[in-house]
């Protein structure tokens, strides 16, 4: 097996194990039984189609966001703005769908998604241009844009679009809604998982092909390795950074597709609940590999839904702690593994 792949698998597995150990210790300090909590969580998730369905529902946006971020991360663009980008796109999807209510679904749905993607991508284009033209790191600009976007949405939503005394927009036409998987199979009875998960899987495969099997992906990864060298072998660095940032941001709008078209039927302020940041952890754990992202997103889906399951024994917020630990664990383990292989030669 390729040494790089082996290194990656070793370090990912180790970091997951370390995270589990740390969470065990934390639970023991709090005088809770970690074995009972984890077994309850796994039993509840995997014993029923409903549990799996709910987990997949939580997994869906993480896959889509992860793919968007992977495109950026491969080119060494540290896009922390997914939270803002996904909200901008989702907001627009919700509003456009509401105003297109009288039209048939085959027209309204694609139009709204395209509109959402355009708006999401706008918030990738801005930091991309600032980076290319002014050489300003995208980290600060995307952090700042997150606040700007959320503030603007809050204003426009409450001022013009929200249902009175709520934080959500008007409900869209029922005929627009994506079919739930329970329509096709009784296993998922009652679960909100919908065909967006298929969309997410297709996106992941496409992203994998783009990143690893095309000339574009080759250039993308070359920039990530060494921007100066890629420039000298004739890669248009600015063009690649611009396009990957834009496409990556556009993909974040799909998180809203899952929520609006697949679940609630309206845009709700705060629906994203920081998945834009969780997705960073998902992507990093998968080493920016879209196929890996499917699995790491599923792992985070388990943590997310599992938190709800064990909420009676231990507050579900424990899973947020686990997510934070996992990011730090991956990178420390990565360094240590790298040093180990370096010593071994």
């Amino acid at each position, binding site marked *: 097996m390729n040494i790089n792949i082996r290194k990656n698998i070793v370090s990912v597995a180790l970091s997951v194990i370390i995270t589990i150990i740390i969470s065990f210790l934390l639970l023991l300090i709090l005088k809770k039984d970690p074995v009972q909590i984890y077994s309850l969580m796994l039993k509840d998730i995997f014993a029923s189609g409903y549990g799996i369905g709910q987990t997949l529902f939580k997994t869906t946006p993480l896959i889509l966001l992860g793919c968007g971020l992977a495109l950026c991360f491969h080119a060494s663009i540290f896009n*922390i703005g997914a939270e803002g980008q996904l909200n901008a796109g989702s907001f627009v999807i919700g509003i456009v769908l509401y105003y297109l209510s009288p039209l048939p679904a085959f027209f309204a749905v694609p139009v709204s998604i395209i509109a959402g993607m355009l708006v999401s991508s706008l918030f990738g284009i801005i930091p991309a241009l600032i980076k290319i033209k002014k050489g300003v790191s995208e980290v600060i600009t995307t952090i700042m844009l997150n606040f700007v976007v959320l503030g*603007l949405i809050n204003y426009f939503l409450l001022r013009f679009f929200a249902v009175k005394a709520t934080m959500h927009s008007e409900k869209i036409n029922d005929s627009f809604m994506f079919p739930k998987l329970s329509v096709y199979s009784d296993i998922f009875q009652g679960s909100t998982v919908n065909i967006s998960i298929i969309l997410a899987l297709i996106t992941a495969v496409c992203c994998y092909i783009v990143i690893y099997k095309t000339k574009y992906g080759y250039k993308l990864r070359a920039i990530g390795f060494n921007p100066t060298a890629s420039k000298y072998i004739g890669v248009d660095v600015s063009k690649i950074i611009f396009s990957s940032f834009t496409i990556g941001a556009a993909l974040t709008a799909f998180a809203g597709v899952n929520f609006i078209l697949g679940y609630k039927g309206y845009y709700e302020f705060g629906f994203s609940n920081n998945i834009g*940041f969780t997705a960073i952890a998902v992507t990093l754990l998968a080493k920016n590999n879209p196929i890996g992202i499917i699995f790491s997103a599923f792992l985070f889906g388990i943590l997310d839904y599992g938190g709800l399951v064990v909420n009676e024994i231990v507050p579900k*917020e*424990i899973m947020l702690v686990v997510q934070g630990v996992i990011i*730090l664990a991956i990178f420390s383990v990565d*360094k240590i593994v790298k040093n180990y292989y370096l010593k071994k030669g």
Partner: protein
Amino acid sequence: MDFLIQIFSFAFLAQVLRFCTPYYLAANSANFSERSGVINIAVEGFMISSAFSFALISVLTGNWFFALIFSVIVNLVLGCLFALFTVRLKIDQIVVGVGFNLLMAGLSKFLLVYIFGTSSATPGFNGIPHIPFIDSIPYLGKVLSDYIVLFSFVLIFLANHILFKTRFGLRLRSAGENPEAAESLGVKVRKYRFYALLISCFLSALAGIWLVSNQNSYSDGMIAGRGFIGLAAMIIGKWKPGKIFIACLMFSFFEALEISLQLSGSNIPSQLIQILPYLITILVLIGFIGKTKPPAADGVPY
């Protein structure tokens, strides 16, 4: 006109000076760290950790002094951890920052529910008392009698002195400008980055403590991006303590204005005022308002 007089009063000015404190402490926290070459976007997370630990001990013991000491120690320990990841293991500083922010937000949420059984706020407690007598001066009393506010005023000169007038400051900056050259001249770059991070964590601890002590309770999400505004102020202030203070005054002016507008029932939307600091920062970064130049080796592991 009435409306303007009501807003731009002495009380309003005092408000601006007070609100400036957490921004200024956060901005200096970020600045010390960046001057030594470590990008610290976890200021937000460090403010959360200190605010929560202060509230925790305050509620449990009712003693603000214990709470203050505990909260600072918690932050220094976290600072050591941050240094372990960024300086010792040389992990990407942004990644560590994002990880810390997630971890602190999650941990505080979790402990809030676990210890206090609520996801919103801790029970109330008495914050750090104000200096007596000075307290009763009209308008400015609240500003001049607050230890942390006073410290932040002193910090304008202190930070400037430490960074630009002492041997320690020179070495710290050399670690952030050209670590290889510094090391070749015998400066222990890693050691100085470690010290800088400890100072950074101490200052962000004070920022968090001031907020929670003035609110007399910790509520989830109360830091509300102030750590990031601190980062913004640092950029706009061009990594210089004096200029940073002016940038912070501008941001605290917006905050005070927003509150006054809300109280006066004006129809100017507060959300749009809230996003101004972030918008201004982006404009400054683009170069509309002067050029900015970070320390040369900012973010480069050594």
